[in-house]
């Protein structure tokens, strides 16, 4: 396995010398996400460094190589009755752990359990000069040194090449059901937030076309007690429904040129934007499919006014400024960090922001 790392290091050093950036590529399942590399570049395929390094179910920690397929990792956890509690979307069979961490995308359980970054305990990585570095560790509480491991989450390969990741894992719930309630959007936003403020075993929420879907997960008696409080009728194909939301195979995602992701304050009133919306995370995540009459600036302003930010998640059009622009002060820090981790600017330049 060390020989694979050696190869990556050689490739990085060659990129520095030839001043030709590399696009880091794992399973190629999320290439649609983020800005494309605009400069002439090579591809650094990092799928070969794969496999689980260590997994101790009773320690609630797994360490796996970044090229490990998410599906394989989840299957290994499933065998022990455990799971990645942030329910990462795969968007394809070849999706890897490295891509999951680099994109930092979490699924339906995020509002209840936490995001990818909340479960990352440590990383082994190569920086932009090819140095093999380890941050964090395999234990749950660790405050030695700056939290570089979590900094890597969502940085889209602009700070380093992930080699190994240690994650906290959680037991699966013993019981789970999904309730469906009919109500309008404003009412649903209100209810989701109200219920999130009560000790109920809600593990996911989704609102679409006047229907609110609530997943309850936990011990059987707790789930039943909550069902009595919430009412509604029980969905028969619960697991398939949440997979379709997580993997964006749900009907909502099947049409339209551009899909926007608005991450905002959960209690924000229904957004006045044309098009169709699907809501998750108790109202904190609003997916928007709209026609071209609305400008990106308008959508960004609406998201900002609602305490958050907007991402052009998928589009058939040309991708230029996918992520919400940063304030000058924040951009200064981002560029300074990029300069420290990747002085030659050869790792995924422009993928996150055109400026670096």
């Amino acid at each position, binding site marked *: 396995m060390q020989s694979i790392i050696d190869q990556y290091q050689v490739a990085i050093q060659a990129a520095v010398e030839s001043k030709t950036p590399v696009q880091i590529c794992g399973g190629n399942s999320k290439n649609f996400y983020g800005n494309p590399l605009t400069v002439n570049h090579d591809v650094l395929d990092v799928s070969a460094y794969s496999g689980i390094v260590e997994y101790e179910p009773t320690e609630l920690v797994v360490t796996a190589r970044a090229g490990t397929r998410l599906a394989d990792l989840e299957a290994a956890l499933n065998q022990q009755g455990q799971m990645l509690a942030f329910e990462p979307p795969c968007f394809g069979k070849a999706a890897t752990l490295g891509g999951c961490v680099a994109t930092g995308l979490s699924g339906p359980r995020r509002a209840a359990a936490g995001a990818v970054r909340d479960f990352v305990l440590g990383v082994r990585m190569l920086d932009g000069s090819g140095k093999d570095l380890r941050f964090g560790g395999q234990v749950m509480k660790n405050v030695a040194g700056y939290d570089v491991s979590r900094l890597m989450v969502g940085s889209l390969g602009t700070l380093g090449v992930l080699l190994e990741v240690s994650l906290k894992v959680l037991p699966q719930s013993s019981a789970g059901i999904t309730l469906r309630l009919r109500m309008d959007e404003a009412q649903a936003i209100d209810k989701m937030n*109200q219920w999130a403020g009560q000790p109920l*075993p809600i593990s996911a929420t989704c609102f679409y076309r006047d229907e609110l879907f609530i997943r309850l997960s936990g011990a059987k008696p707790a789930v039943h007690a909550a069902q009595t409080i919430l009412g509604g009728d029980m969905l028969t194909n619960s697991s398939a429904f949440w997979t379709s939301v997580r993997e964006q195979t749900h009907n909502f995602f099947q049409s339209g040129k551009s899909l926007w992701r608005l991450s905002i304050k959960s209690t924000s009133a229904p957004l006045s934007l044309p098009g169709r919306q699907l809501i998750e995370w108790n109202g904190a995540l609003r997916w928007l499919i709209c026609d071209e009459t609305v400008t990106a600036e308008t959508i960004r302003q609406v998201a900002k006014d609602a305490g958050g930010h907007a991402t052009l998640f998928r589009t058939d059009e040309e991708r230029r400024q996918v992520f919400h622009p940063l304030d000058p002060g924040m951009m200064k820090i981002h560029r300074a960090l990029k300069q420290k981790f990747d002085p030659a600017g050869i790792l995924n330049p422009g993928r996150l922001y055109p400026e670096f």
Partner: protein
Amino acid sequence: MVHDLVNQLRSFLPPEAVLFETEDLKPYECDGLSAYRQTPLLVVLPQTEKQIIQVLQLCYKTKTPVVARGAGTGLSGGALPHAEGVLMSLAKLNQIVEIDAAARTARVQPGVRNLAISEAAVPYGLYYAPDPSSQIACSIGGNVAENSGGVHCLKYGLTVHNILKLRVLTIDGECLEIGGQSLDSAGFDLLALMTGSEGMLGIVTEITVKLIPVPEKAQLVMAGFDDVQKAGNAVANVIAAGIIPAGMEMMDKITIHAVEEFLQAGYDLDAAAILLCESDGSVEEVADEIERINTIMLKSGATKVSLSRNEAERLSFWAGRKAAFPAAGRVSPDYYCMDGTIPRKHLADVLRGIEELSVEYGLRCMNVFHAGDGNLHPLILYDANQPGELERTEEFGGKILEMCIHAGGTITGEHGVGMEKINQMCSQFRTGELEMFHAVKAAFDAEGLLNPGKAVPTLHRCAELGAMHVHSGEERFPDLPRF
């Protein structure tokens, strides 16, 4: 030079907010780790963000070091003053700005006490989850600086999991809004980077924290074991059964005796270890979980299991654990609290190692343990009036931390590196990682004016230490990956 600085500070701060007389500086010479003391050049007590910006701009211009201080309860010397620097107390920024009950958030100033947030949220049925044992006194700003945990963090997370947004001032006085009211934000996760950065990257002036619903019920199982290994296995068995307890604490024999003598909590004096395992949630959930925990404890060989029958009894079971520190203070003139984390499976080995060191150094050591997440707090008992005893204690403590590293753990779970564990950073990290930490610091504070000399050792220091230690080449757990 001091007078120049004082005059300039007094041009925008009221006279009582600038302290420079020796007797006024005295209370600030140490934090919770009183073995380390240093008088600062002067102390400022700003009351507004604007005043902080002015202080920072002045310090930046005059190249004066700045050390931020919250409630001063830190246990690693993170707020130890700098002899030529300004100590900035944030205690006067103590307002809860807003509680948004519907969105389940609170916006607070850094000097607000941890417990005060939960108290203010009570009317809404909400609370702030991280509960470090000093929560009655410690400030939320300090919690962010240290990424503080508490006894409930296995289930509810650390500070980093429970905050949404920070207002941060960089050393040149620029204001950054990091995070948001949303669950994520654009760009790098600077919220995570700031949390636990020990005042080295910026000054936090406002924090938006998450609030969660107060559980309907909490109940506690207390189990005694005649062997530490059996207690460790019981913890693993609870987790293997798919249970994440709200709290899971372990005490060893010497601790049990010390606290029982101190407040008669009804602990089993014959036990080699006692486990406290708490379940919280809805009434139905707790009933189900407590029954399963009870069965697991008995199957794991517990000699005695008691379930709390009511809230008063639950609190009395907890009282002993919470009194571990004062109890240590009663059986010994001084004690030194360590803070390592290990993978739980190595608990018995590490405790045996500590016992051997205890004999070697002739110093007693009590062990309390956040068993769920592997965070060990050995309390070394010593007498500072005995010549050489503090030095022996520090050496003993250093060896415990090295042992944690060798077991695949870390030198600090929640207290921070500060000044105290700076040497052990050289053991935990290699040159490459340390260089990157310095680079991260430089990205925020190129002049190195914020809390200089803390948290990350210079490479020079590590080289000198390396030359001092003669490595025997023997490692305690040679087959472990060092991740």
